[in-house]
């Protein structure tokens, strides 16, 4: 059977979310070592941070509004970290 239109883009959306969070929500300062550590937060936790930053509904899930925000042209500097 043809794939339902709603399921067509699920893989793309998942990749978009992962790429976005890796680029902009993946690092944080290590308070113990004055250096950096790879963020051990889950994808859902990072997504919540992103949603909170952008004033979106904080669900930890990639809803339509969150995906639309992720697709917008933006600066390449991470939103978390230094």
């Amino acid at each position, binding site marked *: 059977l043809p794939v339902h239109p709603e399921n067509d883009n699920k893989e793309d959306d998942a990749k978009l979310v992962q790429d976005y969070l890796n680029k902009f929500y993946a690092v944080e300062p290590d308070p113990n070592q004055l250096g950096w550590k790879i963020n051990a937060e889950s994808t859902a936790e990072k997504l919540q941070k992103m949603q909170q*930053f952008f004033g979106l509904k904080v669900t930890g899930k990639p809803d339509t509004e969150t995906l639309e925000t992720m697709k917008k042209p*933006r*600066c*390449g*500097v991470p*939103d978390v*970290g230094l």
Partner: protein
Amino acid sequence: YGVTLPGWKKAKLTYRIVNHTPDMSKEDVDKAIQKAFKVWSTVTPLIFTRIHEGIADIMIAFGTKAHGHCPRYFDGPLGVLAHAFPPGSGFGGDVHFDEDEDWTTGSAGFNLFLVAAHEFGHALGLSHSNDQGALMFPNYAYVSPSEFPLSPDDISGIQSIYGSPPNVPDKRPASPTSPKTCGSQISFDAITTLRREVIFLKGRHLWRVYPDNSAVERELISTFWPILPPGIEAAYENMKDQILFFKGNKFWVISGYQVLLGYPKNINTLGFPKGIKKIDAAVCNKNTGKTHLFIGDKYWRFDENSQSMEKGYPRRIVNDFPGISQKIDAVFQQKGLFYFFHGSKQWEFDPTAKKVIREIKSNSWFNC
């Protein structure tokens, strides 16, 4: 706002445009970059000088995908437009633009001036703001280049690192302020503070006064706020770095150069009864967070924290401000004291002691 500390340890910074985008003329690129730096030098003590060779503090370049030794890379059209590094040596302070974008001077593609101004914010030590009206908000948003792009949040952020510009005008008045301003019969429509300045309004004009050094500048109101009509009747600076302007039964809330969306509104929305058609004068007491709005021989009090008119008002002015018996043309607060104006006179009033300290001519602030 967010900051990446420390900032630069010096006020004079150099920049170099390493290469240019073919999307625009070299002259337009140079102008956009220069204008973007001016945005920040206007609100800080920083001075930016261009060099054409060697290592500058801020190296500016256009590149695509993986470019040079940069640890970050671009992603083709759209997506990431540019990036920058916080103050420091090596890549520190450097700014890179994605050459796969369409760079322009206007609203098509991506406006180089706006993106550059944002990236220079990073190069000076700001990180992203979650204030959607701020230039340092991460997503691109076109605004007309004729508008000043910094929001109060941006200005607070950069001044938290570098402080504000030296409070000295470019040219001190060679002679005292003009006879017109110093005329003995001068009166004002409204007066408000604006950060460290005092703004006197009359007709289509305003005077910017720097009380600390008696410098005075006269401008058209429309130069700053084209949307405001002449003949503003009352104005005050609130606790949120905004100014409210009143004329008739309307009022505007202005933040920086911009009028907030949805204004003007009817003064009834502040909590005035329907019969009130205009405000004579207004002042926010920064020490208490209460705004006094004067109409005729009475006044109302508005709580800035709860954003509501207080109960028990109106009250007679003379009861709570002994010695202020004339209709009030204008009023402002400076160093805790109120200055009430009527005609060619003003009264310095201590709101704590509840008494008039002295009577002065209304042009005393103008270096006459």
